[in-house]
C-alpha cells in the first residue's frame, strides 16, 4: 500500500488537528473583567497529589479545603459570591503541575491559585503565575522560596518556613539538652537543608555528632540510622516527612537505640505517623501500637491540637468535617487545609465587595490576618512569609500537648521571642467578619 504510506505524515497531522479542535470547548469566563469572578461566584484552583508517592495524607487537602468552602457557601458565601475550588491531581510530577496550572489559568480562568502543594512541583510555576498576575496564595510547603515580594509579588507562603521551625527546635535543644550529643536525620533536599540551617543557628556545632541524609523513595535507612546509633547521640532531630519519622523510629527500635526525638511539624502529625508505624510494622510481620512509639516526640506546632475540642477552631473544623467529609480521617492534613481555606475566605472578605486580583493582594499586604494559627502571619509589603513561628508541643497519649507559650522568629538571624497575645476565637458561624 504505497499510496497510504505516502500520506502518513499528512493524515497524522490532520488527525491531530481534528482531535485537538474537537476538544476546543473553551472554559467559561464570566461577565466581570476580573478572571474567575462574577457577581455570584469566585472560581479558584489548586494542584495537589491525589495519586502517587506523595498522595497519602496530602490527598486529603483538596476535599478538606473544598469542605470548608462548601460550608461557607451554604452560609451565604462571601459578599454574595459562592467559592468554587477546582483541584487537580499532579501526582507530584512537576511537568504535570506546569500543564495543570496553565490549564487552571488559561482555560478555567481561575481568580487565584490557593494551597498548591509541594516544593519541587510548585517552584516550576511561580514565574508563570506571577507573569500572568495570578494571586498564588498559601503554597502548601515550608520552603523559604515563597517569601520574595520583589521578584514574585503574587506568591504567598502560609505555614512557617522550615528555617523558622528549625530555629524553634534548635532553641529548645539548646535550652533543654545543653552539652548532650545531637544528631540530625534529614531529607536530602530544600526541606531538610533549610531546616538544618535553622537548627545550626542555635545548636552548638561541637554538639552535633552526626548528619545523615535520606533520599525520599528509598525506604532502606538502616545505614543512616546505625551511623547515628553508633555516634550515641542523646538527641536526634528529624527533618523528615511522616514516613521517614516512622522508618527512623522502627529502625532504631531494631537496633535497641532509643534517643530523645524531635521532629519538624511536617513529619510529626501523631495520627499519620502512628498509622504509618503500624503499617510498616505489619509489613515486616510485627505488631506495634503506633501511638506508644511516638510518646514524647517533640515538635513545633503552629495550629491548635486536633483533640482539643475546647479550642473554638478545632470544634469548628471538626463540625465541618463531620458534616461534609466524614469518611476522611480528621488529621493534621484536614486541619491544615481547612485553616488555609479560612485564611483565603478572610482575605476575600478583606478585599471587599468589588473583588479584583490587585484588591486581594492589597488586602493581604495590609496585614493583620489572624485565624486558626497560634501566631500571626508576616504578610506585608516587604514580606510574604506565612506564620512567624509556633509552639513547642510534646506527643502525650497520641496527641500533641502544647508546652509554654508560642514563640515567633524569622528565617534570618532574628531572635526567638515569646508571643503572648492570645489566639482569637473562631467566629460563631465560622465565617470571618468583613
Amino acid at each position, binding site marked *: *500500500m504505497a*499510496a*497510504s504510506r*505516502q*500520506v*502518513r*505524515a*499528512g*493524515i*497524522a*497531522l*490532520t*488527525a*491531530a*488537528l481534528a*482531535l*485537538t*479542535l474537537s*476538544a*476546543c470547548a*473553551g472554559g467559561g469566563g464570566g461577565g466581570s473583567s476580573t478572571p474567575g469572578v462574577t457577581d455570584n461566584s469566585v472560581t479558584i484552583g489548586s494542584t495537589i497529589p*491525589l*495519586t502517587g508517592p506523595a*498522595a497519602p495524607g496530602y*490527598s486529603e487537602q*483538596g*476535599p478538606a479545603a473544598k469542605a470548608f468552602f462548601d460550608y461557607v457557601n451554604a452560609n451565604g458565601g462571601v459578599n454574595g459570591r459562592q467559592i468554587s475550588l*477546582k483541584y*487537580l*491531581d499532579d501526582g*507530584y*510530577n*512537576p*511537568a504535570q503541575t*506546569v*500543564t495543570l496550572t*496553565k*490549564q487552571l489559568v*488559561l*482555560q478555567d480562568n481561575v481568580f487565584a491559585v490557593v494551597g498548591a502543594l509541594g*516544593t*519541587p*512541583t510548585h*517552584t*516550576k*510555576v511561580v*514565574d*508563570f503565575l506571577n507573569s500572568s498576575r495570578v494571586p498564588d496564595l498559601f503554597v502548601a510547603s515550608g520552603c523559604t522560596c515563597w517569601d520574595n515580594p520583589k521578584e514574585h509579588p503574587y506568591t504567598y507562603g502560609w505555614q512557617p518556613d522550615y528555617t523558622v521551625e528549625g530555629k524553634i527546635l534548635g532553641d529548645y535543644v539548646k535550652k533543654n539538652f545543653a552539652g548532650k550529643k545531637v544528631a540530625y536525620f534529614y531529607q*536530602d*533536599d*530544600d526541606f531538610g537543608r533549610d531546616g538544618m540551617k535553622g537548627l545550626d543557628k542555635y545548636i552548638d556545632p561541637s554538639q552535633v555528632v552526626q548528619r545523615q541524609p535520606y*533520599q*525520599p523513595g528509598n525506604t532502606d535507612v538502616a545505614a543512616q540510622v546505625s551511623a547515628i546509633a553508633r555516634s550515641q547521640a542523646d538527641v536526634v532531630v528529624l527533618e523528615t516527612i511522616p514516613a521517614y519519622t516512622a522508618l527512623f523510629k522502627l529502625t532504631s527500635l531494631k537496633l535497641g537505640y532509643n534517643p530523645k526525638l524531635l521532629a519538624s511539624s511536617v513529619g510529626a502529625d501523631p495520627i499519620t505517623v502512628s498509622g504509618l508505624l503500624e503499617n510498616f510494622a505489619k509489613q515486616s510481620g510485627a505488631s506495634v501500637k503506633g501511638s506508644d512509639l511516638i510518646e514524647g516526640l517533640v515538635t513545633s506546632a503552629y495550629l491548635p491540637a486536633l483533640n482539643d475540642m475546647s479550642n473554638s477552631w478545632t470544634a469548628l473544623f471538626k463540625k465541618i468535617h463531620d458534616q461534609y467529609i466524614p469518611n476522611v480521617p480528621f488529621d493534621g492534613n484536614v486541619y491544615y487545609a481547612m485553616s488555609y481555606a479560612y485564611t483565603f475566605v478572610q482575605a476575600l472578605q478583606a478585599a471587599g465587595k468589588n473583588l479584583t486580583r490587585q484588591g486581594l493582594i492589597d488586602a493581604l499586604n495590609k496585614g493583620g490576618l489572624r485565624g486558626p494559627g497560634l501566631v500571626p502571619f508576616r504578610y506585608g509589603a516587604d514580606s510574604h512569609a506565612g506564620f512567624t513561628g509556633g509552639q513547642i508541643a510534646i506527643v502525650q497519649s497520641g496527641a500533641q500537648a502544647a508546652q509554654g507559650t508560642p514563640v515567633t522568629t524569622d528565617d534570618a538571624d532574628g531572635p526567638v521571642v515569646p508571643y503572648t497575645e492570645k489566639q482569637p476565637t473562631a467566629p460563631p458561624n465560622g465565617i470571618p467578619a468583613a
Partner: protein
Amino acid sequence: MTATKERENPVKAPKVPPAWRESTLLRHLFWSVLGLLALYLLSISLDPFRNLQLAQICYMAIATAGLTVLSGLSGQISLGHGAFVAVGAYSTALLLEHEQWPIALVLVVSAAITAALGALVGVAAARLRGPYLAGATLALAVGLPSLADYHGLREVLGGANGLIVTPPPPPLSLGESFPLERWQAWIGGLCLVIVLFLLANLVRSPVGRNMRLVREDEDAAALSGVHVARTQILAFWVSAGCAGLAGGLFAMVNNLASPGAFTLTLSLSLLTAAVLGGMGSLAGAVYGAVIVTLLPNWSNNLAQSANLPQEVYANVPLVLYGVVLIVVIMLFPGGIQSGVRWAGVFLRSKIRPE
C-alpha cells in the same frame, strides 16, 4: 473527489505519475510543507492552553517517532527512552541558563549530546537481546534521573528540585502580545515536521532497508552483507537523538528539568504511544502522541465534572487509559495506523470497485 478521479488515470494507463510522486524526497517534502501549513492554521485557531497541548503533542510525537524507528524498524526494544528525554531536557536547561545560545542551536546541541549517549548505549544494546535489552534499558530509565541527586552533581543539576528553565520569548517582530504558547507550538511543530521528514527518508533509504533486514533475521542480514551491530547502533543513535530533541522541547515548554518529571511512567507512555499508533509507523507515532497527551487531560476533566468521590475520581484517568489501550489493541492489533490503512483500502474499494 475530483482528486481521486484524476488519480485513476495514471493507474490504468501505463505509469505516468506526477513528478512529485516519482521522487521519494519530493513527495516527503510536499507532505512536510502541507504539514507545516496545517500546524500553522491549527495554532492560530487555538487558545493558548490548546497551543501548549499542541506543543506537548509535538515533543511526544518526536520521541515516539524515534522509538518506533528503533523498535518497529530495527527490532530493538527500549523501556528507557524517558532517560534520553531527561538528558535532552537537562542539556537544554543548562545550555539556556549558562550559554544563552539561540534556541535552535541549543536544541540541535541537546539532540547531538543525547544521540552520542544513545550510540554508547547502542553499543551495549547490540550485544543484548529481548528481555535482557528490556532490562538494561529499564535500568537506564530508573537510574539515570536519580543522578541529579548525586552529591557531586547536585550543584549543577539542582538535586531533587531540578532546574527551572526560562523559556525564550517570542521574537518582538511578531508583536508584543503574541502568546508564548503559540510560539512554542510553532517551534515544536517545525521540529516535528523536520524530524518526520528526515525519518521518512531514512526509512526509505538503504539504511532503513538494512534495519528491516536485521529485524527480520539477523543471520540472514549478516549473510547478505549487512553489518548487524553497526545498523543496530545507528538505530539507537537516531532514536536517542529524537528523544534528546524531544527533551529539549520538553524543557522549553514545561519550563523545567527535574527528576520527578522523568519517571518510568514517561518511558512507558512513549512505548504506549508507539504501540497504540502502530509500531514502526511514523504516522502512528503522531496518533499515539495525541492520545497519550490528551487522554489523561480529558479523563481528568470528565471525572472532575462528574463530581465523583475522590477515591474514584483519582483512578478514573488510569482506568480510562487502560480501557482505550485494550479497545485499540483488540480492534487493531497493528495499532491505529493499521486501522487507518484498512479504512483507506475500504474507502478506495467503495469509490473504485474493480
